């Protein structure tokens, strides 16, 4: 307890989390997050994770702060996760779903958001089927807008929880091989993950059938002006090549409507060629991590034994999601002071 604990103590001081770098009023996507800001969120999430494990996981830090969940699309985990995160920090949280609100009577998005702000909502968590809807909302209110998924565009809080979960297991993400398999083109998770992972220096590989891969990301096909604007990734259509030496494998949900739209011959053929299976994972690093943003279709994009296997951290992603969202709400809820107030000098 003597020297060792002292050393531990000092090391903890060095890990000093600085909230001064935080510069966001909204969380819309990760493309405008700096490396430092991402690190701030992940470090703060670690502190929040500790609160989750308490006997009574509730602190009064956000007392008097009002959060509205405004969901135009169905959701289980994101919505419940934000609701719990807000409540654990002592905020007031209410949920509005489009199907039972005045949106049914034709109220516009802008009016809905302004109405909620008029009731003193401090933060609005928004999910919408149209890409860009949260940006529109943010430009018409001074409440903080958090994008909880907009169309096929972005899902920044999912990306942050993915980064946090990876960091907890593999530490520094620099040069770690992260492979995303599945319907990349229609995945807002993949898109936000891409920004986050590339800012953390990971080696990102996107894998899927050519019809489900986004265009313009391959090094050979990127126009000159896009080189700096887009994150750098590797595109691979052969899953066996993609998985080789992977540190992290993330399977993405295949939406059945893709088959109806003619992008896939059949779900069975997709599963045959792109399902993440234990046989295929033999080529990955021995201590690979298996992730899935959920909801998952076992037997299509991922085999059941793999999803529930001992390398799967899918459930931990869900738990970490609450911690990451607590960190974001805490950051958004106020201006952060530069130094800890100590009892000696407290006013």
């Amino acid at each position, binding site marked *: 307890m003597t020297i060792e604990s002292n050393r531990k103590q000092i090391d*903890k001081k060095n890990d000093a*989390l600085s909230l001064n770098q935080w510069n966001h009023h909204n969380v819309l996507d990760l493309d405008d997050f700096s490396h430092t800001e991402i690190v701030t969120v992940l470090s703060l999430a670690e502190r929040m994770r500790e609160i989750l494990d*308490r006997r009574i996981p509730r602190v009064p830090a956000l007392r008097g702060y009002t959060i509205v969940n405004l969901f135009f699309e169905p959701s289980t985990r994101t919505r419940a996760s934000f609701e719990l995160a807000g409540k654990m920090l002592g905020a007031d949280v209410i949920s509005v779903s489009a199907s039972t609100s005045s949106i049914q009577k034709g109220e516009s998005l802008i009016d809905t958001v302004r109405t909620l702000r008029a009731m003193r909502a401090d933060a609005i968590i928004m999910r919408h089927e149209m890409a860009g809807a949260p940006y529109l909302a943010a430009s018409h209110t001074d409440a903080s807008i958090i994008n909880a998924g907009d169309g096929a565009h972005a899902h920044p809080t999912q990306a942050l929880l993915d980064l946090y979960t990876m960091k907890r297991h593999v530490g520094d993400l620099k040069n770690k091989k992260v492979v995303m398999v599945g319907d990349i083109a229609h995945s807002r998770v993949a898109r936000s993950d891409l920004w986050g992972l590339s800012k953390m220096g990971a080696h990102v590989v996107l894998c899927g059938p050519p019809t489900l891969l986004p265009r313009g990301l391959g090094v050979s096909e990127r126009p000159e002006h896009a080189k700096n604007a887009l994150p750098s990734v590797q595109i691979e259509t052969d899953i066996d090549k993609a998985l080789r030496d992977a540190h992290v494998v993330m399977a993405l949900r295949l939406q059945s409507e893709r088959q109806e739209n003619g992008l896939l011959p059949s779900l069975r053929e997709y599963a045959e060629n792109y399902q993440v299976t234990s046989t295929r994972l033999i080529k990955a690093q021995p201590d690979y991590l298996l992730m899935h943003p959920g909801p998952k279709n076992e037997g299509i994009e991922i085999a059941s034994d793999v999803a529930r296997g001992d390398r799967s951290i899918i459930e931990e992603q869900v738990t970490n999601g609450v911690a990451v969202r607590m960190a974001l709400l805490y950051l958004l809820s106020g201006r952060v002071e530069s130094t800890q107030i100590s009892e000696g000098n407290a006013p």
Partner: protein
Amino acid sequence: MNKSDTQNLIQQEETVLDAEAIGRTLTRLAHEIVEANAGIQDLVIIGIQTRGTTLADRIGTAIEHFEGSTPQIGYLDVTMHRDDFDRDGLRGTPLPTELPSIESKNVVLVDDVLYTGRTIRAAMDALNDYGRPREIRLAVLIDRGHRELPIRADMVGKNIPTSRNDTVRLNLQEHDGSDAALIRYGGQEK
């Protein structure tokens, strides 16, 4: 007091405890803690971030010297439980909390300077979320007065009379390179 006297006082920083005095005081606090608890059975010493955690470690080391074994030590961060952040919209940076089980234990909270008592209130609120200790005592290195809540310390290293405008600071080897408790006079009370 005329203007130039006030000016002089503002410049002044006085040492109220030097390194040796801090060492002796902590040893005495360690003895008082063990005495009040009649041994180290069920004793958990919890330092409040940041300076309090270092003092808790040192008190633990002192107890080890004369008792032959170390009591359980914990670190508590109270940032999320404070009531004086929201006044100006400020948010503190949370620091790590690491606690052993406190259920039915005799907890001694350790902090560097006791002032308004708000940190201690926050610490007791926070502890509630971790379990139900049998009792909570409070040990502080310096009590500078001006309580705003009905809170007092059970064990006090040194009482220092201060004005609200003064600043009391504790420097510790682990953070600042050397040990010293300092007071900076802030002039007349308004």
